[in-house]
């Protein structure tokens, strides 16, 4: 059964039933204590209402407030196929910020639309963000079908509106599913209320998705943090992606000098390999110049980019605006270089997604921009979609004023 886990986000208009769908997913997969469900049901009964699954999220919030759940932004459930992590996205600005700064990484998304209200501005904004972040595994759910008597024509009309818009922004949804999160139709189980729909349920659709390649299978990126000279010279750092192995042929970037991993050193022991996320030390066969901020890659791998100019999407989150050409510190993994935004290719208000006039050469708080960045020294970057760990960066010295993702690597 176990295929690991898949992280996804549910986005859409605030009133279109996001928390009800999360509550229903958790309930139908048996992921919340039955007593809690009973408690919610009892209070609903006492108030003369039907069960409201949206309150399941409040129960989780309560646990978080009391410190029962350590994880603060993620919710878990599992199917027979794999585990799922739902990333909380309180609003699209927070979602965009979290994705860019690396706080959360969604591999798939559910875009939720109210069947009565149809496609709204916020639906479009959220879809646009999915497109900007390159999330291609997308399920669209048309929720609250019970409120429109499971009407097929209405469903088809919303579907057609939406597909027109999604086409413009380059998203092809994998599935468009009519559901009622409140009643449970086509969330975990099929339903006789929708005899005209023959596609999968939401859970079946999620199960058909492919988890993003785990970074263990990706090319090696070892970010050097420091070099210690004891009885032997140890290069300390962190495996950002790929596997670091003993005897591996490696290249030190940006210099391009080559050598081999002589040993992998851990506290009081040596080991054969180190996995992504691991902070460890290595010794090299030859004595080369290595320093903090270098990136070590496998010598057989040519996928890296050593560059002084690259294209990026940045999200400005400081009250003080940025003026084109101003030198600013860029940090990517352990690399620190001075850089300048050279050109603003596209500027957008992150709340309205309105494209702004970029001639002013100023990027303001909560604006997102496609830009060209020029660095003073060579830097190793990857396309965010290939290796997020070395594909994202922050700007600012003491205070982080912006987050960014690298688009397309070398120019």
């Amino acid at each position: 059964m176990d295929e690991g886990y898949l992280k996804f986000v549910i986005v859409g208009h605030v009133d279109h039933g996001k928390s009800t769908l999360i509550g229903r997913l958790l309930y139908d997969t048996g992921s919340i204590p039955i007593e809690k469900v009973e408690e919610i049901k009892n209070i609903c009964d006492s108030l003369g209402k039907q069960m409201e699954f949206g309150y399941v999220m409040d129960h989780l919030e309560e646990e978080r407030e009391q410190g029962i759940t350590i994880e603060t932004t993620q919710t878990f459930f599992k199917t027979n196929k794999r585990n799922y992590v739902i990333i909380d996205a309180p609003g699209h600005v927070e979602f965009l910020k979290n994705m860019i700064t690396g706080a959360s990484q969604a591999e798939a998304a559910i875009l939720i639309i109210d069947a009565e209200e149809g496609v709204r501005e916020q639906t479009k904004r959220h879809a646009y963000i999915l497109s900007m972040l390159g999330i291609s595994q997308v399920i669209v759910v048309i929720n609250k079908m019970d409120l429109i008597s499971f009407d097929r024509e209405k469903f088809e009309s919303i579907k057609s509106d939406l597909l027109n818009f999604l086409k413009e922004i380059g998203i092809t949804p994998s599935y468009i599913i009519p559901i009622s999160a409140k009643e449970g139709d086509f969330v975990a189980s099929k339903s006789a209320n929708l005899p005209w729909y023959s596609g999968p349920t939401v859970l079946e659709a999620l199960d058909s998705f492919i988890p993003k390649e785990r970074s263990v299978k990706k090319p090696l990126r070892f970010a050097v943090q420091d070099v210690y000279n004891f009885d032997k010279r140890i290069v300390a750092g962190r495996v950002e992606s790929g596997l670091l192995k003993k005897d591996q042929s490696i290249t030190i970037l940006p210099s391009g000098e080559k050598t081999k991993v002589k040993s992998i050193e851990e506290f009081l022991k040596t080991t054969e390999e180190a996995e992504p996320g691991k902070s460890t030390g290595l010794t090299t066969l030859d004595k080369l110049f290595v320093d903090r901020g270098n990136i070590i890659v496998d010598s057989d791998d040519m996928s890296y980019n050593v560059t002084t100019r690259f294209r990026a999407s940045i999200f400005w989150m400081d009250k003080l605006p940025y003026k084109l050409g101003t030198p600013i510190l860029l940090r990517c993994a352990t690399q620190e270089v001075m850089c300048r935004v050279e050109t603003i290719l596209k500027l957008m208000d992150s709340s309205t997604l309105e494209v702004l006039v970029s001639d002013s050469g100023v990027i303001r708080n909560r604006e997102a921009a496609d830009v060209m960045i020029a660095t003073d020294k060579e830097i190793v970057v990857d396309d965010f979609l290939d290796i997020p760990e070395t594909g994202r960066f922050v700007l600012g010295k003491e205070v982080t004023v912006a987050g960014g993702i690298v688009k397309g690597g070398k120019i």
Partner: protein
Amino acid sequence: MIVILAIDALEYTLVEKYQCENLKQKYYGKTDISEFSEPRTMVLWSSFMTGENKEKEILKLGDKEMWNARFDIKETFFYNFQSPKIIDLPGFSYDKKIHEEERELLKAYFSTDSTEEKNKIRNDYNAHAFSHHREIKNQFLDAMKGDHDFLLGYFSIADVIGHLNFGNSLMMKMIYKDLDEIAKEIKQNHIVLSDHGMKAIGQFGDHSEYGFWSTSFKDLNNPKITDFSKIIVGMM
């Protein structure tokens, strides 16, 4: 029809926290009840309907007898209306028996040391409060369809449930959201008003030293509860 949604112990901070947009309306804030020595329900609603500080008069009756106070309509601003409907308001039209039963259960809860007994009383108390709430809600929603020129519905659920369950934030949120849905049903010009709010004392709730107000038409700043009689009559 002018409508007043009178909610006992509606807490300003919880209206904000639970994002009750209908309770908030366009303008909302806290009322100033600092002229009263303590935030007492009967004192505050009596002062509201008469437009005068009735603390001395009510306190003179004593803790038990104050609940029997009943103002004549001529002493209240309701008299300005042709066909007012006042549902369950303390000091005017409230169902004395129902509220007495609630107070008895509350007393019994704090008198017993047995956890089992406490749980049983709490369940009875909650069931009693919810049942009364459903009844008042139906009466209020029905009355909105009537031809009254003034309607006031008094809802005690946030206060009654809050006293024993304020630490149960799920229950409190569900109650606030229900009150918010009631506010959403009001299509007429209306004011939402509470006598006082509620603060946490462990798992329990005690009255806080300000009330809540909201309107769709005017910023009232920091009004006193005695100001509302004039404000409401001015809406006629």
